[in-house]
């Protein structure tokens, strides 16, 4: 991109509004996902205020769900934080990809916009940027849209879970003990990019399974992730 193009990057309220509106259909999908998070957070032992705080300050769906999986009376703080870091490493590449907009926007606005960057809003924004649009506030607006839906749905989900708990003492009756596994299986299918994925996932599964048998705690998650990532790296070089 030419320097002259970069200099013409703008950051307007109108651009943010456009990003917000364009992201609403994706926000509705996120809303459903947030309901699941809110309900599972209560099942995992968080209270509604803690669940809401997590959605307000962490604001990253997959890592929030994984934190719930690790949640317990003896909180494995380091494992949860490390897992969160590892799960969110993809943001590094996504943020780097927004360079053409953000380098000329000014650090305050850029780093504020990045706080609200999600997979969904990023995908819309990077397409907007690639099509030659100049208003970098689109990233902030679309991110705020996801933030709005994510937090409202966390609240509703947590409230619904309380209601369900009141009438249902044994979660296995409705198969709710299977909910975590089902959520992760569904999420996994969204990552399918073709047959090259098979050896990566087999390595991840095998190493995770062996670590699960050999080591206590939840190290199998990190070990499996590192194994899959490493196989992926070697096969793609």
């Amino acid at each position, binding site marked *: 991109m030419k320097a002259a193009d970069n200099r013409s990057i703008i950051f307007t309220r109108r651009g943010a509004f456009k990003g917000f509106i364009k992201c609403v259909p994706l926000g509705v999908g996120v809303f459903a996902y947030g309901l699941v998070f809110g309900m599972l957070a209560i099942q995992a032992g968080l209270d509604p205020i803690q669940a809401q705080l997590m959605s307000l300050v962490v604001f990253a769906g997959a890592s929030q769900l994984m934190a719930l999986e690790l949640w317990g009376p003896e909180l494995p703080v380091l494992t949860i934080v490390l897992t969160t870091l*590892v799960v969110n490493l*993809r943001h590094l590449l996504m*943020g*780097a990809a927004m360079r053409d907009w953000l380098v000329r926007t000014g650090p305050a606005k850029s780093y504020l916009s990045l706080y609200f960057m999600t997979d969904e809003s990023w995908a819309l924004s990077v397409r907007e940027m690639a099509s030659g649009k100049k208003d970098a506030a689109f990233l902030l607006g679309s991110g705020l849209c996801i933030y709005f839906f994510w937090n409202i749905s966390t609240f509703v989900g947590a409230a619904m879970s309380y209601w369900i708990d009141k009438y249902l003492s044994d979660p296995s009756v409705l198969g709710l003990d299977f909910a975590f596994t089902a959520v992760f299986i569904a999420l996994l299918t969204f990552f399918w990019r073709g047959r090259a994925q098979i050896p990566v996932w087999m390595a991840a599964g095998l190493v995770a399974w062996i670590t699960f048998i050999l080591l206590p705690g939840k190290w199998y998650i990190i070990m499996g992730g590192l194994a899959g990532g490493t196989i992926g*790296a070697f096969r793609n070089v």
Partner: protein
Amino acid sequence: MSDSLELLVIITIVCMAAVTYLTRAGGLFIVSRINPSPGIRAFLTHMPSSILVAIIVPSLAGKGPSEMIAAGVTAIMAVCTRNLVLSLAAGLLTVSLLRHYLFVQP
């Protein structure tokens, strides 16, 4: 809930928020200095889904036919609809029906 656990919960959430923001802001910070090699790029691409696999496999190991079939139904539903909530509902419905009527646990 005791006060010390309450505090630990807050610390955990704040640390999660800190590392998450680090990853969101870090890409822009680094991008002008280092260009990630194709290997690192591939590593980062494949890690999130590998972590999902690593969670799923031990959670299914040692489970019965109800869970295995429900896992398959969830996956098929997810591939066909690309909708998380529909897939979750299908999986939960399947597992509860199978446990009730087919593979009743003693």
